[in-house]
């Protein structure tokens, strides 16, 4: 409760004493937008944490061994994530819906349990320390890049590519009949999402002194998916709002000596999704300002008569 109270009474102090939380919100938002890209192009890919791991380990290892500048480490991490994205994307992108989801889960689990935990350089189960981390200073770059990413994605959805993704999401076969190279565009989305996740991973590793191999598993992917779905994946802002909401939720329901936060959080989750099945932010932006004729949902948009 103090949380809200201070936020309204003394926002400046709030900002100064919650930079870590705000930074995490930023990271999660970037992750969420990486999930947005795949969902928007009709792919239920849950591979994000895998690419995060690649970004994180790459940048920290480069920093520890070669003392290269952080920016460069980030960049390499992003590129590596992209490359892996291509390699993984080629076989799995013909899968649909839940099958794609499970395949990507297979990928992330194989990566973390099979590779990361068995390559000595990653520190295996001990995890990887990042002595150069800058928890309190990292926030600016996070917020800045979040703003840029959201803006660019928004532009992207407005353009030819975005419309094509829109079409693919709704009906791949019809999209083909309009000459849209579905496979290529899905791949573009998949790789873009991979690079965003890699970027988020790199940033996060810079905010915490420790890269924990167990944090890039299914739990994380479910969390990220929740951001996107709860926030609404029809609009760039949706996932960001979802991330904001879900990352602050535990703090909002934090009451000293109250041990049942998850009970409350779970209940809130259920209520929100029941009352906004399409996500907090509807397809046309904030649902409150949604024009009357806008479709309520895919299924209800059936032709009368």
């Amino acid at each position, binding site marked *: 409760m103090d949380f809200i109270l201070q936020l309204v009474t003394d926002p400046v102090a709030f900002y100064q004493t919650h930079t870590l939380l705000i930074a995490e919100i930023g990271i999660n938002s970037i992750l969420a937008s990486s999930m947005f890209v795949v969902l928007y192009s009709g792919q*239920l890919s849950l591979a994000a944490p895998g690419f995060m791991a690649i970004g994180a380990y790459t940048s920290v290892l480069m920093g520890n061994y070669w003392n290269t500048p952080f920016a460069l480490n980030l960049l390499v991490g992003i590129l590596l994530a992209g490359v892996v994205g291509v390699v993984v994307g080629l*076989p*799995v992108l*013909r*899968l*649909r819906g*839940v*099958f794609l989801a*499970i*395949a990507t*889960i*297979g*990928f992330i*689990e*194989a*990566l973390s*349990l*099979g*590779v990361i*935990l*068995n390559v000595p350089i990653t520190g295996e189960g001990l995890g990887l320390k990042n002595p150069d981390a800058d928890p309190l200073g990292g926030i600016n770059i996070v917020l800045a890049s979040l703003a840029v990413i959201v803006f660019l994605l928004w532009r992207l959805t407005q353009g030819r590519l975005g419309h094509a993704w829109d079409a693919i999401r709704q009906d791949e*076969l019809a999209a083909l009949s309009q000459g849209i190279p579905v496979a290529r565009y899905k791949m573009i989305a998949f790789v873009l999402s991979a690079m965003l996740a890699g970027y988020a991973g790199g940033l996060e590793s810079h905010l915490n002194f420790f890269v924990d191999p167990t944090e890039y598993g*299914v739990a994380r992917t*479910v969390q990220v*998916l*929740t951001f996107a*779905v*709860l926030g609404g994946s029809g609009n760039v802002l949706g996932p960001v709002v979802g991330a904001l909401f879900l990352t602050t939720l535990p703090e909002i329901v934090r009451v000293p000596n109250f*041990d*049942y*936060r*998850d*009970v409350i*959080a*779970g*209940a*809130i*989750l*259920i209520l*929100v*999704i*029941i009352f906004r*099945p*399409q996500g907090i932010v509807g397809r046309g932006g904030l649902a409150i300002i949604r024009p009357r004729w806008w479709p*309520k*949902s*895919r*299924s*209800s948009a059936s032709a009368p008569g």
Partner: protein
Amino acid sequence: MGQQVLNAIFIGSIYALFAVGYTLVFGVLDILNLAHSAVFMLGAAITYSLVVNYHQSFAVACVLGIASCAVMGLVIEYICLRPLRRRRAPPIAALISTIGLALIIVAAVEQGRQGSIFSWLWVDGANSVSFPSGTVPNPTWHVGGLTLEATKVAIVPVTVALMLVLGYFIRFTQFGRGLRAVAENPRAASLMGLDVDRMITLTVVLSSALGGAAGILFGLAISDISPYIGRDNLEIRGLAVIVLGGMGSIPGAVAGGYLLGAIEVLALVVFGSNVRAGVAFAALFLMLVLRPQGLFGAQVHERL
């Protein structure tokens, strides 16, 4: 080696038992009920509490445990699924609502310790416990270098029996036919006088009861009951199993369960323990790429 084969069969049975509930709901609703793992855990937890804290006989505890899981099935349907159906929400929305419920259930058990508001449900908090020895007779035989532990050996026939009953139920009974009708086309089904909502409710209840039973068996054989057994140990493997077997297919779930068990143990024996899990998931990955519809899933191609 022989022992490892047995291990594969035992764990396979557990996977199968767990996955059947999942696949049942998915087959009918095209929804992944992520609260299933929580219900699985709840079945074990309640049964344990009844035996240890309320001093009930194991049999009674089992019945009550499974019953309360069935009730939890009602909760899932009425709180997580039906409202979303009414609002014509996309299936993925149900993912969130069931996650929410799972969160609540796990938290309730996890925070169940002396003096907490959930102490009536569970008192060991986040700790892991096991049924006190003697809860059920558990003789262990050593045959030709193999160790046969009663509770584990028992799982296999129980699993097979349950699956056969369920299979018959779905395939040949009137209810089963109705279920498949609803699964394929709820609209048409309701036009034939089927009460679709009732069918779905029954499905979720049945699935949850199965989940609870699976949880109890798990607690017995693996002697590990904690708030996390469903979520940490079985949820993802359960998903893997139903995909391996083919979404919505019950024989598929069973076959998938044993297949995953085999893959995991094989990976351990062949590649060594440290990459075992990785190999198992890599196998899942390949399986999907090579045969997306799974073992028993029908090839799906759209009509233009």
